[in-house]
């Protein structure tokens, strides 16, 4: 069923006889496979309000992300959290939408400096499992009026409600960018270099380590980027030769590679995402025995290419953080919980929230486990 208005959506949810699979652009087939009637919300599309001077944009949940990014670029602005397109990684078609991005809380390499998608999310409207239309937050940058259901909806993968509209904080796009590249570092040395850069006052907006080397990004006004690039190069020289890449298209491609995990695209294997404290990442990676590894977020996010059908968590043992199975066959995703199992008391709270927002259990049931 394709939906074109919030009212129709509310009615469709109220009248649903069974489970619903909520679909925006259909680009992120993640989580436990869900059976049910497809509820296509890509028709809830369009930018409702964009005020560059207030750094705010409000748009329908079905609005294609490219449309939003084009509107922002025309004003020299952007979504600072750098949403990632996972089509290549997941081998999917379709068109990423704003609602899908929020439901998955997708944040790219700039997460480490600008925060996550959820941090830029100012307000949401959604239809809960009873068919009630609910709003939370608004369109202003500071808002503590009532509980922050905005954060709760971000990353809830449509299991608490179906997003109809989202408001986001945007930021100016920088005039200039540069990437410091170190080659040939092992994981430990790379993490040490990245940690030194992130602990410096030079406002690093990306720090990754993988097949393209160890990458550290700075952005801003041209003179400032030059200055900070030089200071960082001096700071990092003890780790090896530092090359400063200042060609904008080259820099863009390097970070697209990180953001979209280019190295794992069209390569067989399951893909896992680990969120951990950076200093613990190399040790966990050593235990994982992965076919390939990409560190992002200064080492706080680790992408692992693993043999198919294996439970990475069994190899890692107990650790603080979480592991998410992002890409695997439907059979594997039915067998191994894609989302990290929560400790019992937290699982009880999550289950309680789902039971209250979706009492009939019809919104992407079971997707998050």
């Amino acid at each position, binding site marked *: 069923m394709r939906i074109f208005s919030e009212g129709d959506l509310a009615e469709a949810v109220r009248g649903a006889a069974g489970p619903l699979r909520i679909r925006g652009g259909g680009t992120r087939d993640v989580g436990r496979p869900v059976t049910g009637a497809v509820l296509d919300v890509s028709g809830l599309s369009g930018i409702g309000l964009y005020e*560059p001077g207030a750094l705010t944009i409000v748009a329908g949940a079905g609005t294609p992300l490219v449309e939003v990014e084009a509107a922002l670029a025309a004003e020299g602005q952007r979504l600072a959290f750098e949403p990632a397109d996972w089509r290549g990684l997941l081998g999917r078609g379709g068109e990423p939408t704003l609602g899908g991005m929020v439901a998955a809380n997708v944040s790219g390499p700039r997460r480490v400096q600008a*925060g996550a998608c959820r941090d830029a999310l100012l307000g949401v409207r959604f239809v809960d499992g009873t068919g009630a239309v609910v709003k939370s937050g608004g369109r202003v940058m500071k808002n503590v009026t*009532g509980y*922050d259901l905005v954060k709760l909806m971000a990353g*809830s993968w449509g299991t608490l409600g179906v997003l109809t509209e989202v408001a986001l904080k945007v930021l100016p796009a920088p*005039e200039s960018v540069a990437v410091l590249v170190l080659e040939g570092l092992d994981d430990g040395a790379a993490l040490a270099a990245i940690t030194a850069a992130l602990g410096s006052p030079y406002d690093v907006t990306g720090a990754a380590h993988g097949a393209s080397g160890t990458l550290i990004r700075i952005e801003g006004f041209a003179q400032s980027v030059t200055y900070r690039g030089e200071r960082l190069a001096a700071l990092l020289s003890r780790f090896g030769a530092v090359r400063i890449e200042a060609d904008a298209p080259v820099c863009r491609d390097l970070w697209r590679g990180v953001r979209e995990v280019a190295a794992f695209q069209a390569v067989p294997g399951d893909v896992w995402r680990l969120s951990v404290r950076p200093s613990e990442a190399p040790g966990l990676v050593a235990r994982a025995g992965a076919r390939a590894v990409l560190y992002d977020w200064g080492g706080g996010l680790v992408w692992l290419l693993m043999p198919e059908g294996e439970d990475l968590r069994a190899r890692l043992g107990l650790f603080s*953080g979480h592991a998410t199975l992002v890409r695997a066959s439907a059979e594997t995703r039915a067998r191994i919980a894609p989302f990290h199992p929560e400790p019992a008391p937290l699982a009880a709270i999550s289950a309680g*929230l789902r039971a209250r927002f979706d009492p009939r259990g019809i919104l992407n049931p079971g997707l998050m486990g």
Partner: protein
Amino acid sequence: MDMPRPDETILARRSAIVARLRAVLPADAVIDDPAETLAYECDALSAYRCPPLAAILPRTTAEVAAALAVCHSEGVPVVPRGSGTSLAGGALPTADSVILGIARMNRVLEVDYDNRFIRVEAGRTNLSVTGAVEADGFFYAPDPSSQLACAIAGNIAMNSGGAHCLKYGVTTNNLLGVTLVTMAGEVLEIGGAHMDAGGLDLLGVVCGSEGQLGVVTEATLRILPKPEGARPVLIGFDSNEVAGACVADIIKAGVLPVAIEFMDRPCIRACEDFAHAGYPDCEALLIVEVEGSEAEIDEQLGLIRQIAMRHDPVEFRESGSEEEAKKIWLGRKSAFGAMGQINDYMCLDGTIPVSALPLVLRRIGEMSAEFGLGVANVFHAGDGNMHPLILYDANTPGDLERCEALGAEILKLCVEVGGCLTGEHGVGIEKRDLMAVQYTSADMEAQMRVKDVFDPAWLLNPAKVFPLALSAGRRAG
């Protein structure tokens, strides 16, 4: 301000309840002498007072859990309290409630520069979090103006902001994890030193829940390397509209100052009389602060000067020294003291879209004349978080009520133009009855369901956030 009638059966069992608390807490952690509980009768919204049944001051998470389990089994409401600096009455007791003060839990538990976090007990004051790491070149970014006194626990409860959140965000953007004790006495670890939630973002909904979902006893906070330097400029304008347009142009130009503060004429005058900061006599004044190396600061301020000049300012003052920089901030930082000197005041904190600034300031001026009460405006202009200060005389009968009525009108205006009731202070009791201006019953029902899950008996911080009529069935149950 209506508060629910205290539960007589609880009042009647007072000594038995206190005895049970004494059994699980050290002797000096339970306060029930009426002369001493008086100290907990209000927070910084001092117009409202009510001594609690008792106050407890635990020193450990285990003590908090034990005390909450006792209160839970006795059906006694609990009001968590950080430093008591809430301007919204977030820590106002009811007569049948136990105040749970977290102030004794103020230790630093872990500092980790490589992973850029600090773990503290939640009673620690905001400024002393930065104090623990600044010698090593780091800081904790959220900086509410009460930061010398306010506790991290309270910051988390209200999702506090500050002057520098245009660049660094508010508490929720800098909070990585909490230890949360539920009303039933269960200890939960939510989040940690890693980024983002593996499942539902429970941390996100705990932050800003005004102490109604659990008691936060420990917090893992993101710390950042200090910038090389920072420098403010002061820009004076002869109209609010022009100052507002200048703010929008600075933001559109791609400069992201760490702070843009705005003061209107009544506020400039009061601050000048009080602090003698040498502010120009004009309609509107901006303080814009940027960060970086000396050269980076020069570059950004050069751009800001170009933009400001297009708006024909009456003054553009740069600071050539630390001394001059301090002087630029002096008046702004003494704004609240200056107002207190003139009269009693009520501080609002509604947020509006920056584009609505001129309209809202004009309407506030008109309302101020209508109600016959002075209003001075000082606020964080970059993010639209206003702080209208309404002056009134607490000793004049009817003045407080008139002040509150004017405050309500101003907040309704904020919502009308697309903003919200509170940007950083929280709802508390102060804005509880205005919630319906911003939210439908369905919106509030969705929020209350979250409380149903965390605190099914609705014992934690009662009578706050939601209109009493709306929460009545749940609180009674």
